C-alpha cells in the first residue's frame, strides 16, 4: 500500500486523479449533510384570476440582476392554474423550448401595452427593488399582483431558472449518477471476467459462442440501442439502467480478459498448478485472477466512465426519467428551459458540465496511473 502511494506521488497525473476522486467521494458522500438540496422554487409568485396567461417581463434596469431568467424574457411563461391566494408560476416548457427570439430588458411599459391589447392577461415582473408589484395600476386587472421572493443567501454558483441554488444541486446531484455508474461498471466487469475466463479456460464451442456474442454486441451501436430500449421500457430505476448499460459494455473487456487468461495459462506457475491437479476453480481463483487484478481494476474504472457517458446522455435527452435530481437532470433542464442559450444562465449548464468533466478526468487519470504502476514496461517508458 505504501509502495502504491509512493508510486502515485511520482506520477503527477495519477496523483491529480487520486485527489480528484477523494474530492468527489467527499462531495457526494459527506457534502449533502452540509449542503441540503435546495428545492424551494423562488420564482415570482402571482396572484391572478384563474386561467390568466402570464408573461415574463423584466425591467430594463433590473435585467442584469436576473440572469437565470433572461431566457424567459417576453415569453408566455405559464397560466394561473388555481384561483385565489398565491399561485406558483411554473414555467411551461413548451413555450420556450424552441424559440430563437430572446429579447432582453423589455420594460414594464411593453408588458402593460400587451396587457391592454389583450394579448396576455398578466405578466410576471422581476424587479430588484420591489418585493411586491401591483400589476397594471389602473388597468383592467387590479387584482393581479406579483411578488418576487429575492434569493436570500448568497449563491456561489448562482441559481437556476426557478431561483434554486445551483451549488446545492451539484453537491446533491452526483450520488445517484456515481452509484449507478459504479453498479453498471461492476456488472459489466463481472460479466466480462467470468465470460472471459470461462471462454479461455473451457475453450471449444463455449469459447466460440461467447466470443461471437461479444463480437456481436461490440458492433451494436450501444447508445442508439439504449435509447430504443428506453423507449420500450421506462428506465426509471437505477438498477435496471445500470444492468442495461452493464449488459452492453462488457464485450471489450471480456475479449481482453480472455486474451490475458490465455497467455497467463501458459505461464509456469499455472502449468505447475495444473500439474499438481489443483482443479480449474483453484487455478482461476488462486493463480490467474490475482495476476489480473490491476488490469481488471483499471478496466472497471474505464467501464464506470463509459457508464457515466451513457447514463448522462440518456438523462440529457430526457430518456431516463430518474427521479433524483442529478447533474444530468440539470443539463436536461438547462437545455429544455432555455438556460443553454442565455448568456446569463451559463452557470446552470456550466456547473454540471464542469462537475461531470472533472469526475471523468479524475477517473481516467487515476486509471492511467494504475496502469503505469502495474505495467513495468510502461513504468520505465
Amino acid at each position, binding site marked *: 500500500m505504501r509502495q502504491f502511494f509512493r508510486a502515485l506521488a511520482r506520477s503527477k497525473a495519477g496523483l491529480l486523479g487520486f485527489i480528484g476522486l477523494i474530492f468527489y467521494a467527499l462531495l457526494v458522500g459527506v457534502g449533502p449533510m452540509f449542503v441540503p438540496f435546495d428545492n424551494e422554487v423562488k420564482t415570482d409568485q402571482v396572484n391572478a384570476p384563474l386561467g390568466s396567461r402570464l408573461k415574463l417581463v423584466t425591467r430594463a434596469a433590473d435585467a442584469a440582476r436576473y440572469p437565470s431568467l433572461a431566457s424567459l424574457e417576453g415569453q408566455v411563461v405559464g397560466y394561473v392554474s388555481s384561483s385565489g391566494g398565491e399561485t406558483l408560476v411554473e414555467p411551461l416548457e413548451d413555450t420556450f423550448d424552441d424559440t430563437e427570439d430572446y429579447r432582453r430588458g423589455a420594460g414594464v411599459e411593453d408588458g402593460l401595452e400587451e396587457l391592454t391589447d389583450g394579448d396576455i392577461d398578466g405578466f410576471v415582473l422581476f424587479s430588484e427593488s420591489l418585493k411586491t408589484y401591483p400589476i397594471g395600476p389602473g388597468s383592467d386587472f387590479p387584482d393581479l399582483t406579483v411578488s418576487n421572493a429575492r434569493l436570500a443567501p448568497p449563491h456561489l454558483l448562482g441559481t437556476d431558472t426557478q431561483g434554486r441554488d445551483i451549488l446545492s444541486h451539484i453537491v446533491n446531484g452526483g450520488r445517484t449518477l456515481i452509484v449507478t455508474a459504479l453498479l453498471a461498471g461492476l456488472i459489466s466487469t463481472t460479466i466480462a471476467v467470468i465470460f472471459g475466463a470461462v471462454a479461455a479456460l473451457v475453450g471449444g464451442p463455449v469459447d466460440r459462442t461467447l466470443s461471437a456474442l461479444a463480437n456481436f454486441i461490440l458492433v*451494436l451501436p450501444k447508445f442508439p440501442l439504449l*435509447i430504443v430500449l*428506453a423507449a*420500450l421500457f421506462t428506465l426509471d430505476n437505477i438498477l435496471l439502467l445500470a444492468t442495461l448499460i452493464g449488459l452492453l459494455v462488457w464485450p471489450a473487456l471480456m475479449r481482453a480478459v480472455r486474451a490475458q487468461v490465455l497467455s497467463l495459462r501458459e505461464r509456469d506457475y499455472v502449468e505447475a498448478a495444473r500439474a499438481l491437479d489443483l482443479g480449474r476453480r483453484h487455478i482461476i481463483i488462486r493463480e490467474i485472477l490475482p495476476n489480473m487484478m490491476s488490469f481488471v481494476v483499471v478496466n472497471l474504472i474505464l467501464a464506470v466512465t463509459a457508464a457515466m457517458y451513457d447514463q448522462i*446522455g440518456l438523462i440529457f435527452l*430526457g430518456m431516463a426519467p430518474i427521479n433524483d435530481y442529478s447533474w444530468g437532470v440539470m443539463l436536461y433542464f438547462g437545455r429544455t428551459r432555455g438556460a443553454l442559450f442565455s448568456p446569463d444562465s*451559463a452557470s446552470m449548464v456550466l456547473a454540471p458540465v464542469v462537475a*461531470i*468533466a472533472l469526475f471523468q478526468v479524475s477517473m481516467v487519470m487515476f486509471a492511467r496511473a494504475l496502469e503505469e504502476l502495474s505495467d513495468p514496461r510502461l513504468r520505465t517508458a
Partner: protein
Amino acid sequence: MQTSKTLTGPPPLESGWLSRVVSSYAVRTLLQALLTIWAVVTFTFFLIRLMPGNPIDVYVGFLMNQSNLTYGEALQQAASQFSFDPNASVFQQYLGYLGDLVRGDLGTSITSTGTQVVDQIARFLPWTLFCVGLGLLISFVLGMTIGMLIAYYRNSVLDTAVSFFASVLGAVPDYIWGLLILVVFGVQLGWFNIGELRGTYDPGLTPGFTPAFIWSVVRHAFLPVLVYVIGTLGSWILNMRSSTTSVLGEDYVNVARARGLTPGRIATTYVGRNAALPLFTLLAVNIGLVIGGSVIIEELFVYKGIGSFLFFSISQRDYTSMQGVFLVIAVSVVVANILADLLYSSLDPRVRIEGER
C-alpha cells in the same frame, strides 16, 4: 548453387489489386459482416415485436381508441405500417420482414402518414455520415501526426503536456465538450449565432453545388464535426504515441537508419505506416462510438441528421421509423467496420496471409 533451403517457406503471392480484393480474407470478412447484419436484423425484429408491451400492441390499442376501430381493423392497419402479415405465424412474419428488408422496404412512418421510412432515412443519413466521416478523418490524421510527433520527443515537456491534454480530451464525454463550446463560445463570447446554425443548411437555400449552399453546409456542420474531432482526438494521440514508441524500438527502424534512408522516408514509410496499423482496428470501434454519440450531438446542435431523427421518432413514438433508423445505424457501423478491416488488410501484408491459411 541452389540449396533446398531456398525453396522452403510459403508460396509467393500474386501481385495486383484484383487478386488482393478477391483474396479469401476479404470474402471471409464480407461473410462475417453479412452474418452480423442478419443477427442485428433478427435482434431488432424480436426486440420490437416480441417484447412484453411491444409497440405493435400499444399501437393497435391506440388505433382502437383513437379511430374507433375493431381489433382486427386496427391490427390490419398496424400490420400494413409495420409491413407484416397479421395472419401469419411469427416465423412467417419474420421471413416476410427479411424479404421486405432485402427489397429495401422498411415500412411506412406512423406519425408522418404515407412517408416511407426508407425515404426518411435517405433524407437524414447522408448528413450524419458526412459529419461523422469528416470528423473521424480529421481527428485520425491529426491524432496520428501529433501522436507520432510526441513519440519522437517522448518524455520531453511537449510530450508530457500533450499527453495530459489528450487524456483530458478523451476522458470528457463528447457532448460535454459540445455543451462547453456552445455555452462558452456561442453564448458567452458570441463567436457564432447558435440559432442561425440550426439544421444542416440555411433555410431557403436550394441544395446544389453553389458556393452559397456549400458554404452554408460547411458552417452548419462545423460544430458537430468539431465535437467529433475533439471527442476522438485524445485516444488517437495516445494510441499513436504508444504504438510509435514501440515501433521506434524495432530493429527495422534502426536498420533503416543504418541504411542511410532519409529521416522523412523513415518517419513515413517505416515508422508511421507500421505504427498506424493497430489504429485501424481501433477505427472500427470508434466509428461505432461516434455514430452512437451522434444522437446526443445532433440533438444538442439541432443538426438534422439520422441521430436527431432517431430521437425524434422515439419521442413521437414512431416505432416503424425508430426500428428502421436503428437498423440503418447498426448496419452503417457494421459496414464501417468492414471498410476499416479491408483498409487494414490492404496496409498489412501479414493479415492477407493469415486469411489464406
